[in-house]
């Protein structure tokens, strides 16, 4: 049973566009929601993370929007660049041991 559902599976945007990736979770005990970025042939790397007591968090061009009542959160990539082309994973966890439940990933392609 997949506890974090991620969509879309892939998306293509032009440079400067705003790709939006959505995630929905089931476990209301989740208290930490990270986003990881993975380039081909590399391991995932933490991009940005949020706690459920915050509705929005920005780091550079990356923004997480969080809707606790709807159990949904999303990643926006502002002014996207070709270098942002990667696979993005959302996740949720409920404990300090970091047992992440990952979404299925979204492959983002930013065209020049």
């Amino acid at each position, binding site marked *: 049973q997949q506890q974090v559902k991620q969509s879309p599976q892939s998306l293509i945007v032009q440079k400067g566009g705003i790709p939006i990736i959505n995630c929905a979770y089931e476990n209301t005990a989740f208290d*930490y929601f990270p986003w990881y970025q993975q380039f081909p042939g590399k*391991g995932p790397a933490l991009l940005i993370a949020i706690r459920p007591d915050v509705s929005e968090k920005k780091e550079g061009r990356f923004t997480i929007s969080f809707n606790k009542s709807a159990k949904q959160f999303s990643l926006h990539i502002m002014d996207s660049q070709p270098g942002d082309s990667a696979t993005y994973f959302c996740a949720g966890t409920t404990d300090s041991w*970091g047992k992440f439940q990952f979404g299925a990933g979204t492959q983002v392609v930013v065209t020049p």
Partner: protein
Amino acid sequence: DTAVSQTPKYLVTQMGNDKSIKCEQNLGHDTMYWYKQDSKKFLKIMFSYNNKELIINETVPNRFSPKSPDKAHLNLHINSLELGDSAVYFCASSPTSALEQFFGPGTRLTVL
């Protein structure tokens, strides 16, 4: 360089063989993980160790056995390899006091 390293990067082997993947981190972290990323890029946690103690043991075949000789190393031994074991295996680490996980570069295992 401070990082999570894995060896080998690629592993091609025949069905039925036994193989090991090694992981080392020099970040001073207390917790280490093994993940499996399948052909659809889905990331699933397999095991986690905190200070050499097994704390997460997901439902994986008992052909997979992790070993942590010290808190900087977490190795994965796989017996009687099957075609379905073909995947990319990632090692990761995190400090006990924080949830960010640092991933290694991955080991692509191909079972023929």
